[in-house]
């Protein structure tokens, strides 16, 4: 039986405004370039720093956050299993980070109405990875290094270099969503 084929768009970070604008909710993409992991505790610290008017330990303006905390690397490996964690937990922090200048996020699941509005207002983008495919997805990471909050262990901020990671545009820069129930 023949199946519809998917057009895969090759994209790379850091994103230009044009690149973000050209992507639509539901597009299947293959992402290369630098992203930074940050999840719950890192978000809390980053936002505290912004609220206090302090510099962030890493300049994240124009950058992409990946909501993920890897398993430890086995000997000889760049990184252990790593897949997306639930994006909704970052929602309370996301509007402030987008206002600061973060331009793209990678995670899994739905976002709050406030996050969606902030994505549209700042011309940002939310990409989703397949939750539960962590061993598979780790193969698309060619370099990894902790760059901030080392004491947080798996929740530390890591600089990752991706090569062709399969993602879907979950919410585009117009605020349109490809996720359930909007996809119905």
């Amino acid at each position: 039986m023949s199946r519809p084929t998917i057009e895969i768009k090759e994209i790379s970070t850091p994103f230009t405004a044009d690149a973000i604008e050209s992507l639509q909710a539901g597009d299947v993409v293959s992402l290369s370039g630098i992203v930074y992991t940050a999840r719950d505790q890192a978000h809390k610290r980053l936002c505290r720093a912004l609220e206090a008017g302090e510099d962030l330990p890493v300049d994240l303006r124009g950058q992409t956050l990946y909501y993920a905390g890897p398993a430890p690397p086995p000997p000889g490996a760049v990184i252990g299993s790593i897949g997306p964690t639930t994006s909704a937990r970052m929602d309370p922090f996301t509007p402030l980070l987008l206002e600061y200048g973060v331009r793209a996020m990678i995670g899994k699941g739905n976002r709050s109405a406030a996050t969606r509005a902030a994505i549209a207002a700042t011309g940002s983008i939310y990409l989703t990875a397949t939750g539960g495919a962590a061993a598979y997805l780790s193969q698309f990471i060619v370099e990894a290094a902790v760059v901030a909050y080392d004491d947080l262990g798996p929740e530390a901020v890591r600089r990752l270099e991706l090569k062709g990671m399969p993602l879907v545009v979950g919410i585009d820069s117009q605020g349109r969503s490809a996720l359930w129930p909007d996809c119905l």
Partner: protein
Amino acid sequence: MRVDEVKELTAALCLEANFEARSDVKKHLQQALAVEKNPSARSAIEQLLANIETARESRLPLCQDCGYITVFAEVGQNVDFDGPLVEAIQAGVIAGYEQGHLRQSVIRHALSARAEPEKEQPAKVYIDLVPGDALRLTVMPKGGGSDNACHLKMMRPTASEDEIADFVVASVGETGVNACPPLIIGVAIGGSFDSVALGAKKTLLRNIGELSKDPAARALEERLFKEVNELGIGAAGLGGAATALGVAVDVGPTHMACLPVAVNISCNQLRSAAGEL
């Protein structure tokens, strides 16, 4: 029975649960792929099947979240141990997670510094005393994202089957997208506030698709499986036919004033491994 053998078995089960997908999970993902029509949901299921192969071949855990670790120990009442049993199980979990480079997701204190891992008692151990002279252990790691998606409601004892089904389906609608679909859903009805939650988790140890012997529970399983999939959440929440791979329901005794209902939502990486001494 020697507790060092208990420790070894526990460690081996931790590795198996995290590296080797359950055969029923793999089978049902393949079945889901066969019926899924949405191309991006199909691609997500293909990634999940590839993930199972990568995990086994590369000795990488199925999920980076190696879970909140539950160990069910069925202890034969005639067994004499040569040392403390629970300590041996905890030591086995610690050893298994170290050997496998598994992420220790359990932190020491829910309200303290979040980065400090629990080093001494990382697992929750449930002990059941059973007849006989064997020890059966089941290790079940569960990710935090899907545990956050679970629901519990103390319903009215006069609630209809429709109301119960609506609660379960609404629960999946509320949190299912975030819990790494396609999901496996475990429902327990009856017992008490505390026991119903544990009961819902235990139904996830059943083979996916294996229906209850209780006719009322079985009818609910069939109904819920249909209704949950009609939500159309699909793999990775991208819309599609495969929202749930299976629904298991367990019904037990309860207080005449009560009707506790618990919904344990598992991600697609439902993990468990069992062994016996």
